[in-house]
């Protein structure tokens, strides 16, 4: 705790060593988030660095009473990822169409047996908005209401994106299974 406080104090004073410590402490978790949202490794590093830049520039605003440093940094980085996706969003997220997802059965074991890189590739192949929704819903644990508020879409659209994501992922995984 004291170490964290020292790091925060150092970062507030612009101490490069403290900044490095903070960066390296949270690197693993943050790069993981960024990799899921972005299309490739380079973009992931770029987005994460932008997030950390915001963290360093606004560390004075961090209040330890409101939450842990990890939660605060994660929120900043996730928002950076969403900004990235908004800029690269390929499909309109304003369509209010909710077709029923095709029922394709995929066993969880199939996922476990898959290579991580392959799975990540599938996630990255999803349209930007859909990728954002699935990440926020499955990985970050947000509800549809919260996602709707973050992405400025309706709850229904968020649900539709999730359904699309499920459908597409199942399809891709099943195809992969077949190939294997």
């Amino acid at each position, binding site marked *: 705790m004291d170490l964290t406080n020292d790091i925060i104090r150092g970062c507030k004073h612009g101490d490069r060593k403290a900044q490095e410590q903070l960066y390296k402490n949270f690197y693993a978790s943050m790069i993981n988030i960024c990799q899921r949202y972005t299309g490739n490794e380079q973009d992931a590093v770029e987005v994460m660095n932008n997030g950390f830049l915001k963290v360093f520039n606004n560390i004075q605003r961090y209040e330890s009473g409101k939450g842990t440093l990890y939660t605060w940094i994660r929120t900043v980085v996730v928002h950076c990822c969403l900004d990235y996706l908004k800029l*690269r969003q390929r499909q309109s997220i304003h369509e209010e169409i909710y077709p029923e997802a095709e029922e394709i059965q995929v066993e969880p074991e199939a996922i476990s047996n898959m290579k991580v890189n392959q799975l990540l590739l599938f996630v990255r192949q999803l349209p930007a908005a859909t990728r954002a929704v699935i990440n926020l819903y499955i990985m970050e644990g947000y509800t549809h209401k919260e996602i709707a508020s973050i992405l400025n879409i309706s709850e229904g659209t968020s649900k539709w994106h999730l359904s699309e994501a499920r459908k597409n992922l199942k399809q891709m995984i099943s195809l992969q299974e077949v190939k294997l």
Partner: protein
Amino acid sequence: MKKKLPIEEALEQKLQQIPQPDQETSWQAMKLLLEKDKRRPAFIFRRRNVIALLIILLSAALLLWKNNDRSSLNKTAKDSIVKQEISNESNKNSEQSNENQNKENITTTTEINKADKAVQIKPTSSSNTAAANSSSELSEQTSQGTNADGIQKVKKKKRASKGRLNANVIAATLSDDPSSVSKEENEEKINEKKKKKTKSALQSNLAINSAIPSELNVTSAVDHDPVMKTDEVVSNRNVNLLPMDSSSNAAIVPKMKTLAINETIKDSLNLSDTTIVTNTAKRKNDKKKPFIFSAGIGFKQQIPLSQQKISRYGFNGRNSIVNDYIPSVYFRVEKEKKWFTLLELDLAAPRMKEPVVYSQQTSVNNIIAQQKITRLELRKIFYQKIGLSYHRFIKPSLSVGAGLNWSKLYRTISTKNVTIKNLQNQSEETNTQVIPSNFNDSFLFKSVPSFTLQTNYEWRRFNLGLRWTSDLQPYIKFTRPSGEIVERKDQVLELLLYIRLWKSKRN
């Protein structure tokens, strides 16, 4: 309560194991970013902000300058009116003084030639001097004030002078020649009548020309009186310049000096008149060609060049071209029939493009013997555009100009063609989907500066134009599978129609 499917839980767990890029390399990139951020100028000194600030300051200065120019023009117009009146008066006075000079010469020669009749002349000259004294007092009085009290005082003084005149007349009656007395009596009566007229004229002049210096008022009043056009005029003009002597002989020398001074005043007035005239002429010219501010809306239609294709999709992806005709807003500053500058703001300005395939994915499913090709093709780009151009009139209604535009990427229209090919029977099925997006992917440049050449023809509030725009940098950059980097610049030809909605009034 949120429900996660087993597959999602497995997915979550699996995605936690994503291999990470090298931490040290990332930190080096971070360090560079931090250094760059440190060197970044303060918010106010950033290039965009400085440009915005400069534009605001320039427009504010322009508006202020315009307002000042208008008020100064009004002021100078008033001044020039007053000065013109002064110059007119001075011209009149100079003419009058010339006449007086001639008359004086005549009077002095008669005094010399008719030395034997000095007794007859002297009372006349003394009466004239007395009248001159009275009128000088009168002018002094009028110079003190232009109100009714002043006029009443003038009346009193006039009565006193009248008394003095009578005394002179009595003195003249005591002289030897009775005929001269009768003549003088007649002259006095005529003078009295004319002075009454002068008094009324004086009152009217006082009322009208209260703003003009009092000396001139009196002079102009005296000018109306043919009787007072001799010594009185000269003495009147010298109220503030020379002390008056009651004796006619003493008055001659100062009179001559006065005439000389009057000449210099006249010259100076004439000089100042010429400067005033030139200044007013300049201002009149300025007035003739003032700055005219106007604002309105503009419509445009792109004419396809080379391989550019018309796309009927709006920025929302709907099959409608209504969005293409969102009018632009312009603001114009014009030096009448000489030149004008045009600031134009164009929201969601469409640009037809030659179709560019920027993404192609091919997947083959050997089990079902199917090939799937997904192609993304860029069809149309929408920009938020701001342009500044300068135009010169080559004919009264025809102008040519050049300018710079800055376009910010707003949206794009792409088509997604999914072709499914059956490898067994070679049948093909293609689905085309229009994808509107507000992304600016790495292959598209966020902002594109461009150069424009434009010609306009004006008719009343309408302005028809033709504009050619050429990008100063590529709008797209992508890598082909062969590794070749492709950059494309664009050229646009547009037909324009501006409609003026507001125009500032002429000064």
